[in-house]
């Protein structure tokens, strides 16, 4: 499947996942762009691309939220 078709198919799930984390647009762009870049390179080797992409996005968001919690003063 070409990347463009994959992105169209996966977009609703990715969007729902990312909205759940309440990211700013800057954070969204950073996470989405860098993750898709890794996927572009792994395109031939990742079999289940949807699972991979959603897991990567979720992990990146969780790390971001954790980092936010750490820097917010009491």
């Amino acid at each position, binding site marked *: 499947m070409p*990347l463009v078709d994959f992105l169209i198919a996966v977009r609703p799930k990715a*969007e729902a996942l990312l909205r759940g984390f309440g990211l700013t647009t800057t954070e*969204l762009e950073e996470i989405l762009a860098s993750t898709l*870049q890794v996927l572009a390179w*792994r395109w031939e080797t990742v079999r289940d691309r949807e*699972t*991979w992409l959603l897991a*990567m996005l979720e992990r990146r968001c969780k790390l971001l939220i954790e980092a936010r919690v750490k820097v917010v003063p009491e």
Partner: protein
Amino acid sequence: MSDEIKVPTHPPFQMPSGRGTADLEGIPTLRSTLPPAGNEIRLLSRKPTEPDYNAVFDRVFAEAVRHQESLEAERTQAEALVAELRFQPANRRRLLIRNSRRYQTWAVAQGLIDTSYQLGFREPAESCDFAALATEVVEHLDRQRYGLAPLIDLKASAWSQLANARRICSDFPGAEQAFATAESLLAEGSGDPLAMARYCDLKASLSRVQGRFDESFRLLTTAVQQYRRMGEFRFVGRALIKLGLVHSLSDRNHDAIEATRAGLELLEPATDRQQIMTGRHNLVRFLVEAGRFFEARALLLQVRRMYQEQAEAIPLLRLKVMEGHIALGLSNAAEAEQAYLEARAGFIHHDLGYDAAVVSLDLASLLIRLGRATEVKRLVAEMMPIFRSRQVHREALAALLLFRHAVVAEKASLLLVERMRTYLKDAHKNPKLRFDTSGLPADPPSPS
């Protein structure tokens, strides 16, 4: 109040000018939102409570499509460049990757890593050199073009492969060092679960050959969980086959059989031929050790056919030893003797001293059972000159001398033969290992 904000574009997707013409036909949202030139994008009228995700998705997706197209061209060029390096001497390879920008691409680095992995099965020294080249190429890559996190992932992958290649070349301290570098890089990378799983998978092999079976088991369990979670069942299969080996080395034969069988079911014949052969060969051995000789014999025929198709001479000799064990298990001593003799002659022909020594002991064990003491003495007498000339370590030679003395004194029991056999297998990987002489006749003849 205007809610206009400025957001920097993500540097990894800055494309070289004039490159990237993705076919966006039929996707108006992507086509209409290709990012403007420059380093900043203006997002208008964003509501703080509901960020405009649509615009970001459109823009980033469009960039990803264009980016992938340029990568495809890079990949195509890299195949020829990596193939070209195979025919160059080692110093020339380094000159090329340091001085020619054609070689300083992600695809070349990835190609070197993949080639190193494939060479590990047949040409370990070349495998090491290609992995080392990959660690050099990644240092020349453009961070702006490829992005920081993916680049760190790639560096980690190159160092993991170098560690693996060094492990195959028995350079265990070098492998440890390379794995430490890979691990610290992974902590800084994108967090790709598959990259982590791959690291655990490869490191488990080092832990295994160093005798740290619990660590190897833990690493493989982590790798299996990650691969499974990501839907990479082929890699689950490969890791399960390695897990089978760890179970076997930890004396859990039933678990070894189960894990190997489960692993084999997940492998794909088109891409995993080598792993299928290894897995089936291991399974033959585990079945023999479990005394399930009929099952082992049926499987052995399949493995033999695969090795013959690939003209794999040495694995065929190791399979011949299994044939001997199976024949013995099925009470066919003559067939077992013939198989051991053929394997022994083959190992000597290929200068594989330890393998020849171990199968000689299998033969000695058989002859002792048959009460053919004179032939045992002759066999052991023949062993010494063969092993002196075939890379058998000093400690192992001393042990063989002690064993010969026991045979001459007619005090070589089956238990002693088994102890000697186990010792030789371990001593092959640990040349300093000494043989436990308890139970052997006193005053052996001094080594000549």
